[in-house]
């Protein structure tokens, strides 16, 4: 019995190791960015704002800038480990507070888009797999267009048509549900087209499996077979990609929030990039790395729920 258990132990260790590595990598990338930026590190941290000599001295002490590079690195690593992401001198608040204030709006947008994408692509895949040639042809064509359209242009088109021409939705900073509709669609579209394509192909493979034939032989109607037996397996590729999809969604926050004048991490990041507010950009990269790790751990747990066979295998 020690064999499988040891294997499970090693698997857990590998995963924890990879998570730690990703987080450490993100910290190192940030630290490198800070030191590659031309100019004195203290000035880079302050950005384009002006501070008193006392504050400047405090920054040098906090980051250990008068110490050797290796000590600075250790200091920085220690600060991040304690959850201290530094100070934004342009926003006059801590980076953690700035991100915390904007995180809610972006998480709302990301989760809504994720739910819409999964529901829409599952429905489309169930409806189009193994159907008439022209239906599949049409949906393949649409999927091809879907993956080629830049998200920011989708957002601009939605804004122009549904806000400016038709006046159905608020054009800027809409609160509540009405303000969320267009941004969610814009963010969800590329993910939906990709997932549909993927899920349909795995659904078509599953429909060839013997257990599907068994179900049909029992006289189960086609829709029943698809929903009861095939759907579960269709979700596996979607779950595999969720970590990566969340990364994609977070990236598209930047233009989409700007186009719809919404609050959020995207707007915060864009402002920081144009204002050369490096501590905020570094903070956002670190926070998203943490999100990536958390999402991937959740995904591993989700597998066990979706496919019972994996419970014994691990």
């Amino acid at each position, binding site marked *: 019995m020690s064999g499988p258990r040891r294997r499970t132990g090693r698997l857990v260790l590998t995963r924890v190791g990879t998570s730690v590595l990703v987080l450490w990598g993100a910290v190192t990338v940030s630290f490198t960015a800070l030191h590659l930026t031309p100019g004195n590190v203290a000035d880079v941290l302050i950005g384009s704002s002006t501070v008193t000599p006392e504050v400047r001295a405090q920054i040098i002490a906090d980051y250990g800038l008068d110490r050797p590079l290796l000590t600075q690195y250790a200091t920085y690593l220690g600060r991040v480990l304690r959850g201290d992401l530094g100070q934004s001198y342009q926003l006059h608040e801590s980076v953690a507070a700035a991100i915390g204030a904007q995180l809610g709006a972006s998480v709302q947008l990301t989760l809504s888009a994720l739910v819409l994408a999964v529901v829409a692509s599952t429905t489309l895949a169930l409806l189009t797999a193994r159907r008439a040639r022209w239906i599949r042809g049409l949906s393949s064509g649409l999927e091809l267009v879907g993956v080629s*359209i830049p998200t920011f242009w989708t957002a601009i088109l939605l804004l122009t048509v549904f806000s400016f021409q038709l006046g159905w939705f608020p054009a800027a900073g809409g609160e509540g549900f009405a303000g969320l509709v267009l941004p969610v669609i814009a963010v969800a579209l590329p993910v939906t087209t990709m997932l549909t394509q993927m899920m349909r192909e795995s659904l078509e493979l599953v429909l060839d499996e013997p257990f599907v034939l068994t179900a049909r032989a029992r006289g189960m109607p086609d829709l029943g077979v698809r929903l009861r037996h095939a759907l579960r397996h269709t979700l596996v590729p979607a779950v595999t990609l969720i970590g990566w999809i969340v990364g994609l969604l977070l990236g598209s926050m930047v233009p989409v929030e700007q186009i719809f004048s919404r609050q959020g991490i995207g707007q915060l990041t864009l402002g920081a990039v144009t204002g050369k507010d490096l501590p905020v950009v570094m903070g956002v990269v670190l926070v998203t790395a943490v999100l990536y790790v958390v999402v991937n751990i959740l995904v591993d747990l989700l597998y066990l729920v979706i496919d019972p066979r994996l419970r014994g295998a691990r």
Partner: protein
Amino acid sequence: MTSAADASPLGGAPVTTAVIAIGTGRPRRIPRPGVWAAALFLALVALAAVAPGLVASGTPDAADAADALQAPGAAHLLGTDANGRDLFARIVFGAAPSLLSGLGATAVAVTAGTALGLLAALGGRVLDQVVMRLVEVLLALPTLLLALLVITVTGPGTANVILAIALYTAPGYARLVRAQTMVIRRTGYVEAATSLGLTRGRIIARHVLPNAFAPLLVLATIEVGTALVAAASLSYLGLGPQPPAPEWGAMLSGGRDYFSVAWWIAVFPGVAITLTVLSITVVGRHLRRLVEGRTS
């Protein structure tokens, strides 16, 4: 850790990931007329990039206040912008700057990725571990945010956009080249070359690289589309070529205040980007089918 990065040699690419993640499933074949139409459109875009004067008459910067915000019509095929500049001329003259970032980023990424991949595959165990862990970390971070971090450091501009996009696309190529090299170095012809006493460098240049080239080229063709979208997005955010450069993303950004009164400003530059990326994807997928058909 389960992630798309595991499923796809290019973690940051929707198109590739979508197809490679399935593994067994082949992308549906695109009908031949579609491939021809895509190739023809790309030829037209290439012509516009090389000799814009042959495709559009007029100049992209000729402003005329009396002609501002004209709807598409006989005088101006695609209408005019707020400064009275002809949109068609700007889109045609914008082909070169718009393609430059995407193509440049892909070229840099392929070169750097190939070097890293060879280093990992042939440089020994320790180097392999170091390079591949670095690749994993870069693939785990959200792509656009990584690009934004680079641009915060370097400032805006075409060269910096190229660098930013190359940084997060190079790891994907590194992964592919490493995998290819691992396979090729164990083949009979490399063994034969080794026993003939050829030097390591010569074996790499004459035998390893040419055989790793076809999959690399196919991947790069499809990835150019993704790189173009990324470059256009960064330009739209005001971080690429600066106005009045007629870059497609920057044109959308510059027309922002007029979308409510002049829909054509919001539509046509986007159509140019989307059709170009779509055509590249179609041709790229066709190329991959050809290469796969030959090897399998």
